[in-house]
């Protein structure tokens, strides 16, 4: 086949790719590359950028707030795991055993996912209010009210509860589909062999969804390590920097201090850490498809 014929044959194929390629280059790869470049520059929209070497990295690594943010982010990720991670698994197994109203329960569990996050913020500020419904219940039971938002011991925990409430439904539905796809004969056989209910869950249900659990575990780590929107919207990183996460300090460097160079440097550092996690996730999800 001549090259002209080849060109004609594939002309439209390549043409179809061009718009997407241009967009990916302009709005994805260029910002990513520029992020690395900017991290070595002082960005000034008026006077132009100037090269500062590793200056931005020195600035951020010597900023105690950055280290607070790293600690807070790890704490936030940890809380999301112990408060949020196991909930969808337990409910998926429990709901799979429902004989009636299963569809209704699924919809109810997923419903908070559909609520816009701005509504979530307004609503939960009211729920967590010192004189809101949660504190009303607590005081009626004879306990002291809790300052969910302004007490540094509670603020992050309160945010994690709020996010778990909103998000556990989607993970639950993914687990539920996996649990429901387990062949029933396995349980039948195990029961005949004398395995009790717990043993059936322990040796059949959980191993069956093990890969999914690992995958969602990594996805959750990647997602929570980037969390900042609810911390920003509900508390602006306060009280006393207790909810200042790493992604939030990136945003603050950029839009409060207008130091886009240091913000890019923080982004680069995060990129290096998270890139590793993402590759790991890819490996695992490929394994899962292979099964």
């Amino acid at each position, binding site marked *: 086949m001549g090259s002209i014929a080849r060109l004609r044959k594939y002309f439209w194929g390549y043409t179809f*790719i061009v718009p997407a390629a241009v967009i990916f280059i302009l*709005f*994805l790869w260029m910002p990513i590359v520029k992020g690395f470049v900017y991290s070595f520059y002082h960005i000034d929209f008026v006077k132009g950028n100037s090269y500062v070497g590793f200056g931005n990295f020195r600035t951020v690594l010597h900023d105690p707030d950055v280290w607070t943010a790293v600690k807070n982010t790890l704490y936030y990720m940890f809380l999301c795991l112990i408060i949020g991670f196991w909930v969808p698994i337990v409910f998926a197994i429990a709901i799979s055993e429902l004989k009636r109203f299963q569809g209704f329960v699924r919809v*109810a569990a997923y419903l908070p996912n559909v609520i816009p996050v701005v509504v979530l913020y307004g609503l939960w500020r009211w729920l967590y209010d010192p004189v809101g419904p949660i504190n009303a219940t607590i005081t009626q039971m004879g306990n002291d009210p809790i300052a969910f938002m302004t007490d540094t011991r509670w603020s992050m925990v309160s945010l994690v509860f709020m996010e778990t409430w909103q998000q556990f439904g989607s993970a639950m539905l993914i687990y539920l589909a996996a649990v429901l796809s387990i062949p029933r004969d396995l349980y039948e056989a195990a029961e005949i062999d004398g395995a009790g209910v717990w043993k*059936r869950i322990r040796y059949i249900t959980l191993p069956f969804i093990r890969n999914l659990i690992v995958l969602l575990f990594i996805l959750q780590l990647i997602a929570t390590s980037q969390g900042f929107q609810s911390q920003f919207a509900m508390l602006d990183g306060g009280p006393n920097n207790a909810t200042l996460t790493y992604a939030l300090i990136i945003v603050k460097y950029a839009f409060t201090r207008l130091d886009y160079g240091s913000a890019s440097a923080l982004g680069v550092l995060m990129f290096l850490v998270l890139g590793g996690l*993402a590759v790991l996730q890819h490996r695992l*999800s490929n394994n899962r498809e292979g099964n």
Partner: protein
Amino acid sequence: MKSYDRGILSRYDLQRTPNKIVYGIMLLVITLMVCSMLYPILVTLFNSFKNNVEVNSFPPHFLPQKWDFTTFSKGWHYIKLPLFFRNTMIIFAGNMFMTVIVLGLASFSLSRLNLPGGRAIGFFFLAALFIPPTTYIIPNFVNLKNLGMLGTFQAFWLPAGANAFFLLLLKNFFDGISMELFEAGRMDGASDLRLFLRIALPLSVPIFSTLAIFVFSTAWNDWFWPSMVMHTDQKRPLATAIYNYVINVRRLDTNVKFAMLTMVMLPPIAVFLFFQRFIIRGLHMCGVKG
């Protein structure tokens, strides 16, 4: 032999008392979960029908004692809701166009036209899946500023086209369409563009409906990015407006606040209840690939 459906539990299990107790506790916990899911949503709705004294009273009631319907008209006139709603819809329409045309064409070409070098091109697109978006959020902003796109709708539409995850979903979907259809079309002399418009697009209505729901929920939800790239109300979407004028404002009456939250909350709930099937399916696709 198998005359009944069983799960982990069989009928025999439920005849034993300890199992019955555990099953009862489980039902109770699920009921509690459902209530705690529905309570905040219903309380938002009911708070918007209370008068301002009642909504601030302690301890709070669930149902309004006196129904007040004026809150909604107050909320409607408090900010220009139709304008913000229009902006959200413009953003949604533009993002959807980018998804269908730009990503649709590219994924169709990658999946069905057997281009030489197609694998490398595919890798160029899909490698973006590995990159956490927060890490380049600031350079992305600076980049848009340099391109002079701040304050225009292009600042939403064009970056929305750079979505590797949607590209992957579309490509996987096109991979599943039988090749014979396209070969038959080609026999009849259809051009590649015609194959895309007349065969691929009509067959991919399910995947595009799923994507439409994702795109809609992003357009309806996202308040942070718009608040960075838009500096006037003229082009801000609903979520940003609500964040600026309802969530972050102290003077607004609580009942009017809840009326506005209700107005913003109900459309997506309606969309969800109506399109449940597509949403749940979309979720399963997400489960396969993050």
